[in-house]
């Protein structure tokens, strides 16, 4: 991978395609980086609490380095485009919430309508491409305060993710993280076999 890959490109490569939700996540991640004056996470210096599992979260993961696998991405299934980014080093956290807009832009409505279709004809494909271009420009050019609200919050940092021993499930024979296994006398049973 080349050095100097811009955040937007990182997010697109990670997510696989460009979409409005991802771009909103890019705006939030880039804002958090600047606001907290932080570098992308290497080893859990940062922590993200995301209140959605939609496209924007992939921007948080790829740009800020708060990832599912590292354990510094905490998912709360609230269905809200809200991202709290915290820095252990700075002892600061910012909660970024996408503003509610009762009426979507006609471009966005039409784009969603097209994306819901099973297949698009040639004219519709071109229309969807042009709409996405217009939405892209609008989302990346709109002042941040028109898209999101943000505030500093008190944040109690959890301990860094622990690495637990693996034990063997007495039913299927597969390895399972000890705290997830059910103890049955001298044996362990994995959640799948309970």
């Amino acid at each position, binding site marked *: 991978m*080349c*050095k*100097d*890959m*811009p955040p*937007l*490109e990182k997010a*697109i490569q990670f997510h696989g395609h*460009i979409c409005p939700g991802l771009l909103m996540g*890019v705006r939030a991640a880039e804002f958090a980086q600047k606001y907290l004056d932080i570098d992308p996470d290497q080893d859990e210096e940062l922590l993200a609490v995301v209140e959605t599992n939609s496209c924007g979260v992939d921007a948080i993961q790829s740009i800020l380095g708060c990832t599912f696998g590292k354990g510094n991405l905490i998912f709360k299934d609230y269905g809200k485009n809200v991202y709290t980014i915290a820095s252990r080093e700075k002892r600061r956290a910012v909660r970024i919430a996408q503003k509610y807009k009762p009426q979507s832009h*006609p*471009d966005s*409505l*039409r784009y969603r*309508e097209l994306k819901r279709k099973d297949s698009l004809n*040639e004219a519709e*494909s*071109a*229309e969807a*491409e*042009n709409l*996405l*271009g217009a939405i*892209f*420009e609008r989302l*990346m*050019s709109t002042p941040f305060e028109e898209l999101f609200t943000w505030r500093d919050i008190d944040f109690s940092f959890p301990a860094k993710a622990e690495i637990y021993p693996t034990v063997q499930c007495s039913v299927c024979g597969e390895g399972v993280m000890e705290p997830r296994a059910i103890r049955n006398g001298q044996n362990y049973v994995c959640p799948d076999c309970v």
Partner: protein
Amino acid sequence: MCEANVYLHRDGQEELLMESVDRIIPGEDNQIFMENIFGERRVVKARIREMELVRHRVILEAVPEEPVQRHTEIWLEPETAHGHFHPGEAVIIKLNKGYNMQADSQAELKDPKAYIVKPEGTRELELHAHHNQGEINLTEEIDGLAQIYVHEKGEQERYAAVLVEVGHHHHHGTQPIGLPLEIIPTDYSHARMGENYEIQVLKNGIPLAGAEVKATYSSTKNRDYPHHLTTDETGRAKLFLTARGNYLFSVTDENIISTFTLVKSF
């Protein structure tokens, strides 16, 4: 009742497009967005012909599609996925003939000549052309940034230019090559998606104001160029980059078509 029925007037007949419409928003490029009280939405390419507000009728008329003016052009595309080559890699530049970054299988390259422009002077390059495609191998030629251009003579003079980069460099203030008609980047340094990119059109070295510059990208599904820009009094025009892959800018003046390929950094 304040909603209206929307009709499309065509060949003296009126066709009902949507009933109980409560929002009509004219958009760019003769698009009209409408939404009715049931939440149904539609976008049509039309303009408003008449509004009969007492009778709650809005009559649209279709806008005839302008025929696509297809002037076959040539353009250059480096064979790299992310905008530059790494030292030691094969540096191959493809020459294409067609329109809107779509090669035309009917087109024939007519003895095109390729050149490399370096501070010490301009030199012709070996170009292998066959049918509507050509190839230039620059592996032994470049370290850093180089300007490459191709010229195809004829009744229609065609030029294609590109900046080729080997390694990671930052470049500002690219000098014009000196073509009769050319597009140059005003500040070439790792053009990226999500940013504005500015070009300048020069005719015999002098900024060309009011010129139409068309812009497209390699992944477009549009039959015609998706972007049409007009140069300002300094010959400059800007485009916000929203697509992956390379962009192509094209300008026509009198009998010359000149293209510039923007190779994005990633």
